């Protein structure tokens, strides 16, 4: 199939033309229209990652998809963070930042986070695994090995703050020293139309 040269060509309508869909009374002015790029990317607008105090980069962006779960409507968002768990140690805690919502709980519904380690003196190159215990990590030998301790993203409330304040951390620990790079990529849902604010740590 030929690659579409523009969104208009792909969709087959002119943006100035207010079409009525067959068997529907809705016109375009009553619809949410997404570009081809938005539909394929899923994200509304660019994801901007700010720099944090631990050298991490993090940010959130609103996603196109919304959910209706048992009659309750939710908006969806994406959280991204890039962090180096260095220098090597048995325990690492990186504060990503906080997600503060106007009202309601947040629920993480998807996790595509990745862990990258160096394996130059092992099988060569870099290892990439989902963020969980068992992911490959490295140390000063430049040989990757599986982590057998803890590896997860923590959503935590600060006891003195309202429940709508969610602090996010990367937690990793093992019996021996290790280091690696982490790419957090997680989707969460929250009450429809509530405010969502991210504060970098």
């Amino acid at each position, binding site marked *: 199939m030929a690659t579409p040269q523009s969104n208009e060509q792909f969709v087959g309508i002119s943006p100035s033309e207010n079409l009525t869909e067959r068997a529907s009374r809705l016109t375009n002015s009553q619809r949410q229209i997404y570009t081809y790029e938005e539909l394929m990317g899923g994200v509304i607008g660019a994801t901007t990652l700010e720099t944090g105090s631990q050298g991490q980069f993090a940010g959130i962006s609103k996603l196109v998809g919304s959910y209706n779960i048992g009659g309750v409507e939710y908006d969806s968002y994406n959280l991204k963070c890039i962090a180096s768990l260095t220098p090597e140690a048995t325990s690492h805690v990186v504060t990503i930042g906080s997600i503060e919502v106007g009202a309601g709980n947040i629920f993480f519904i998807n996790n595509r986070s990745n862990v990258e380690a160096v394996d130059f003196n092992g099988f060569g190159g870099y290892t990439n695994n989902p963020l969980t215990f068992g992911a490959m990590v490295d140390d000063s030998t430049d040989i990757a090995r599986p982590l057998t301790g803890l590896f997860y993203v923590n959503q935590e409330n600060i*006891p003195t703050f309202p429940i709508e304040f969610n602090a996010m951390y990367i937690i990793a620990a093992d019996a021996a020293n290790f280091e690696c790079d982490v790419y957090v990529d997680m989707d969460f849902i929250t009450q429809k139309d509530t405010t969502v604010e991210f504060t970098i740590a």
Partner: protein
Amino acid sequence: MEDTLIKVTDEKETLLRPIDATFKVEYKYEGEATAEVVLEGDVKRGTVIKDEFPAPDASKDLEYSEIVIDVKDEPNNLAYASKTSRFAGRVPPKGTPVPLPFKGNIPKNKEEKQLAMAEKRVSLLERLQERFPPKEK
């Protein structure tokens, strides 16, 4: 069938899942001096799940029923105050939210949020290091 009888929330009706609290359900009958505790226990993950509220004594007139949420005063508990919700002449409706008043600190600026997150990070790291002691490099 078991169902959610009580939801412990904040005043925006956000469920307080991590709250450490107990609950009591009391029925007060006309002409009696004190209310009678008909159900009590721990709030688990912000909810109380049971079959039904106990049926009131049909031979007496129910003046009111009350749900008492007692938040444990512990340093790591969420900063919400205990509360009693009263229902005149009836048993509480199933799934009733009990909105607890917030008694903590609403962060005023970015720095205050960052400081709180940093303190929590130190606490998390210390607890991890107890289980995974630091090693020489």
